[in-house]
């Protein structure tokens, strides 16, 4: 059982009276890449927000890295080793690439509370390294990312995740707003994570991408996990029928 990276038992989330997520049982093993698919409002993003500590669950348990966890916020989750690319890019547009990569985990020359002196040179060097290992091409990392294309910004966000990834990477719709080439770039980064053995939870609408990239596909419908399909044993039509409710009206284990 030690190869289980992430497990949720009975994970449930209400927003007021709305049941966004109900009794989600999910397991992710070491090195495994799992896609989370489902219609809009099926509970995919809610699921991610509970794991990453952005929101507090209503009920259920989360086990990460062998221990039950209760992350009070995304930073705590990140410190525990969960790196996330959020659907809304968590980037500061007016900062350059190194500042964004190291946002909230800056390196210092010396510490002096809020007036700690930043080690900008090292952060810049590490940024260039990180972009290199993830094969992301950013022509000038010293420009504010406001001036960059949507794809480049997404790549910065993903490079940040990939560069600091230690135990688990979560991506919420990483390619939703991207063009063909940019999507290919992001998919390459994901393959790189697979090679490095970093486990991944990928939330996506793109079934072609999902079947291409991951080992296993978990289908959400109306706040419940309705199917867990191994890549070799399923196809697009099969997944769609679970998403739309043609198949699998009984809850399943993810």
């Amino acid at each position, binding site marked *: 059982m030690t190869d289980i990276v992430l497990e949720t038992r009975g994970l449930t989330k209400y927003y007021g009276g709305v049941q966004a997520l109900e009794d989600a049982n999910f397991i992710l093993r070491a090195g495994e890449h799992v896609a989370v698919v489902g219609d809009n409002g099926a509970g995919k993003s809610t699921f991610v927000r509970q794991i990453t500590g*952005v929101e507090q669950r209503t009920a259920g348990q989360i086990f990460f890295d062998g221990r039950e966890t209760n992350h009070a*916020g*995304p*930073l705590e989750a*990140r410190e525990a080793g969960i790196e996330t690319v*959020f659907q*809304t*890019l*968590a*980037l*500061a*547009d*007016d*900062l350059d690439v190194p*500042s964004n990569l190291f*946002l*909230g*985990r*800056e390196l*210092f020359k010396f510490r*002096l509370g*809020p*007036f*700690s*002196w*930043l080690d*900008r040179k090292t952060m810049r060097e590490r940024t260039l390294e990180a972009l290199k290992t993830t094969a992301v*091409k950013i*022509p*000038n990392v*010293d*420009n*504010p990312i*406001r*001036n*960059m*294309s949507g*794809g*480049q910004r997404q*790549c910065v966000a993903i490079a940040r995740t990939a560069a600091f990834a230690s135990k688990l990477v979560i991506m919420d719709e990483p390619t939703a707003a*991207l*063009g*063909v*080439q*940019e999507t290919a*770039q992001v998919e390459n980064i994901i393959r790189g994570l697979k090679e490095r053995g970093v486990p991944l939870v990928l939330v996506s609408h793109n079934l072609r991408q999902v079947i291409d990239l991951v080992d296993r596909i978990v289908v959400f419908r109306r706040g419940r996990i309705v199917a867990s399909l191994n890549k070799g044993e399923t196809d697009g039509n099969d997944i769609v029928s679970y998403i739309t409710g043609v198949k699998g009206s009984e809850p399943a284990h993810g």
Partner: protein
Amino acid sequence: MSQTNHGLGGLKYDPTKKSRASEWNVLAALVLIILVFEGLNRLNGTSFLFNMRDNVDTLFNQQRLDIIILQVSITGIIALGVTQVIILGGIDLSAGSVVGATAMITMSFAQTALVNGAPNPKAVFGDWAMDLPVIVPIAVGLVCGTIAGMINGLLVAYTKIPPFIATLGMMVSARGVARWWSNGQPVSFPTESYGELANGDVLGKLTFGLFSWDGQNPAVVFVALAVLFHLIMIYTLYGKRSYAIGSNEAAARMSGINVDRHKVLVYTIAGMLAAAASVLLTSKNLTAQAGMGVMYELDAIAMAVIGGISLSGGRGSIVGTVLGAGIFSVIISGFTSIQLDAYYQEMVKGAIIVGAVVLDQWRQKGRVRG
């Protein structure tokens, strides 16, 4: 021609093109405005910058420069704080009133017991508060500013009311404190050492007369603070967090920055800077009045906006504000030099502020397209 790369998605991207720092535009505008006023003055046979009187032996028009430098310094110190608040994505309307309240309270601890042999006619407290060491009123003043700024920050960070409203409340309340403090009476007759604060010649003393001119202290303090906060905004975590929060508060929060605590810190520093300006102002005038600092907050905001600080947060720099303060004061002084009526001055001042914001909007649109 510069080489263009095809970036992701086939988008053209010029790697050599780095957006030119807008500070250069502000500097160019400052030089241009000085030249315009110089030209307008020359038409009347006078000069804006230079000394035209034969009986005075200086190159520059010292009197005018002194006025400009004093205005840049005092209002500029406030603008340094306001700049940080705006970069954070907030606004501080309370600075002028904080100057007023701080002035009254500070001065009460800076009074001298005997004026021309008679007891101080404006004494607020009894003998215990007379002839205190100069550090006491300074400390009292900074504490006033700290409290006002901290209240602003706590309101903005923890009640989630818009900064405009929170600081508007402080603007009205602090002015009330200023009027209540001595029932609207001025507080006057400070100790000699307190009067020295703004009227002294600190560099002259430090350099044994090398850089000596009277009343330079506000300018020296302003430059020192500007350099300090320039370094802080660019090289420290404080600056990085301020820009990050002003740029994308949700992202800053998600990155683990304690946004609320940082906001309190920035507003507090802005309050302290307003108080510092107040201490220098009362020292310069040797008196404190309840109406001191009225509209200073708007002048300070104008300086920041003219200097390219974006009201939507995240963009701008201390250097920009220093140059903006220069432009602002040169324009005011320039209007006086061409004998433009004070009423027109205010009208034009308003137009300049609006114009600067419009420019900022255009710049933003340009960026989105690019």
